[in-house]
């Protein structure tokens, strides 16, 4: 027994030295996705994950990250759940358990505000599609916001709809604000309420904000019916709330045009729950949506996921993963600090890393905001949402309520 043991011991010492190492496989680069995968916003997290997985599959199929010897990207997802506390602890967990090169998330602005604090503290670069202005108003160095911020969206959306209304001989004189009090919506409504509407001589006739969930929408929609505003600015991020409002709008025969804020208003499940007739002409301002020339990308997504169409959440996350890949190529390193520095300097205007953005260019200012970011307007037409503004990117002409 003894000699046998000695032999084994000797072999164990010799064999590793004798066998030449295989061609050194590049170490995987790990990207974190912190998004709600359970709870009230799980659907949005699921959509984001679809986009991330598609990008990762493409990158790895093309030979991974060239600057790192073909390193593959792997996704580490963490469930942000349904509260800021859960989102923060998810980020904490995923970022401390192993070395993460960069992160993406967390859809709801309120979550992103918490999660980016963790990323900042642990010095991991973080890409977000969330809208709230405050995300990039805290002097953080590791937070990068690719979407136009809420207040800017409010300004641009108001310009666009007043313009559209004028062209259709239905100038806007009375407006309504209806929505919940989650961060992105609050930041969108605030400038409208405080200055923008007044500056255009528009009277605010209804201003109703609720805390989700909404028990019943009767009282709100009754006010819309009584005042008949020329436009309703609409922000109901919680799906059941939004369905209740839209059902009531149909029930009460409210004809005012609806201008939403956010991509939650253009998810496929609206078609099966409220019907395409109710949705027709409803439009929303979003940070991203497939534009002219992206038919192949959308087709690929639809075939992969069996979703009826592609929207902001998968599209942005798809580009975010590609953007991280580009930054790693430029940094020639998977080190989070090097990637942050590369992101801060990056200036690209072609390829999948900019597919989600309008105009299609990524360059961040010193706060981490994408320079020149402009929103899109997407409109439901025949049960599918199409980009209608800006015209150069539109996939359908806009139609206005008659």
């Amino acid at each position, binding site marked *: 027994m003894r000699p046998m043991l000695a032999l084994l011991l000797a072999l164990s010492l010799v064999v590793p030295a004798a066998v030449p190492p295989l061609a050194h496989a590049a170490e995987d680069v790990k990207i974190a996705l912190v998004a709600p995968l359970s709870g009230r916003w799980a659907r949005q997290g699921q959509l984001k994950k679809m986009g991330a997985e598609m990008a990762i599959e493409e990158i790895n199929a093309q030979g991974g990250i060239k600057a790192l010897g073909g390193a593959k990207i792997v996704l580490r997802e963490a469930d942000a759940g349904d509260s800021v506390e859960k989102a923060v602890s998810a980020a904490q967990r995923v970022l401390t358990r192993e070395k993460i090169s960069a992160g993406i998330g967390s859809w709801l602005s309120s979550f992103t505000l918490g999660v980016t604090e963790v990323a900042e503290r642990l010095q991991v670069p973080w890409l977000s599609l969330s809208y709230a202005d405050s995300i990039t108003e805290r002097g953080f160095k590791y937070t990068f916001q690719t979407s136009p911020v809420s207040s800017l969206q409010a300004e641009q959306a108001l310009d666009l709809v007043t313009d559209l209304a004028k062209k259709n001989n239905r100038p806007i004189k009375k407006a309504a604000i209806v929505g919940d009090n989650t961060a992105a919506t609050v930041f969108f409504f605030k400038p409208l309420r405080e200055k923008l509407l007044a500056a255009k001589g528009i009277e605010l006739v209804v201003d109703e904000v609720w805390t989700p969930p909404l028990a019943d929408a009767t009282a709100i929609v009754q006010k819309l019916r009584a005042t008949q505003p020329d436009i309703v600015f609409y922000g109901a991020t919680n799906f059941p709330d939004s369905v209740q409002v839209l059902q009531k709008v149909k*029930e009460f025969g409210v004809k005012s045009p609806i201008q939403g804020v956010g991509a939650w208003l253009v998810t496929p499940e609206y078609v099966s*729950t409220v019907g395409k007739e109710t949705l027709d002409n409803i439009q929303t301002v979003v940070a991203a949506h497939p534009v002219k020339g992206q038919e192949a990308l959308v087709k690929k997504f639809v075939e992969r996921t069996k979703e009826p169409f592609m929207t902001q959440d998968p599209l942005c996350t798809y580009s975010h993963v590609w953007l991280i890949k580009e930054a790693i190529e430029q940094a020639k390193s998977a080190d989070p600090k090097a990637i942050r520095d590369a992101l801060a300097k990056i200036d690209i205007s072609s390829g999948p890393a900019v597919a989600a953005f309008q105009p299609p260019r990524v360059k961040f200012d010193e706060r981490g905001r994408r320079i020149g970011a402009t929103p899109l307007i997407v409109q439901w037409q025949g049960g599918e949402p199409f980009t209608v503004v800006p015209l150069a990117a539109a996939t359908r002409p806009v139609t206005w309520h008659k």
Partner: protein
Amino acid sequence: MIAELVQYVATGLLVGGVYALMSIGLGLVFGVMRVVNFAHGDFMMLGMYLTYFYAVSGRVDPLLGAVLTLPPFFLLGVLVHRAVLGRVTGGGDPARQQDAQLIVTLGLSLIITNATTMLLTPTPRGIRTTYATKAFALGPILLNQARTYAFVMALVLAAAVYLFLTRTDLGKALRAAADDPEAAGYQGIDVRTMHGLAFGTGIALVAAAGGLLATYHPIEPNVAVNFIVLMFVAVVLGGLGSIPGAFVGGIVIGLVQSLTLLVLPFQLQNTGVFIAFLLVLYLRPQGLFGRRLRTV
């Protein structure tokens, strides 16, 4: 102004009707078994899904689908009681049993929500009915058709439960087991079977309430969180363990939610409910219909 008030009252009543049906089951389970069932809302969610699948695969109208959820969910309730809950109810050290019950029902809730998220995906689904977006017009007052039908069905089901409990031998045995398990046992009533019956009935009722809710509310694995707190408030408001109390509690919550909007902004809609709740607990700690010994 009067028309507006009437509209708010009508809306509140309609909303409250379904709350009431949800709460009766919870009240029944507590009344008979002394179990606080945290998974109650999750069974409601499952009831919504079953109604949805009836509607999609069999073209069954959700109003009928809601009734058709009663038998399978009754059986499910009896099974869950047999397999899980029965092991931590009836007998033993009451304090330790209560801890075990809380953990069991909370655990059940987590398992049901997350298993549903995994199996059926978080994508919300909905049953589109013609009556969800139509209203009965009584002069200036509009009554949403889906909610009106759901309200009427809730009343019918609640009345059926009441008759069952007061007019049948089985119902009387159930109440006896609730009032005094020991004495009921001496009378030849199998308390364990009664517990199973109560749990099955409670689950069946909340599943049916889910089915009615599905006529106008989207269905997702997570839908219970929007209702479970209101159900608990309704049950405590009405008086712990009192079935008529739970019913009235549900209606009161619907009314208070609606009428709060006359004086408070929308963001404070549920504040009205909780103020009313605190007031009732302060002035009448046993709840509206509770007996003195069951104070909170």
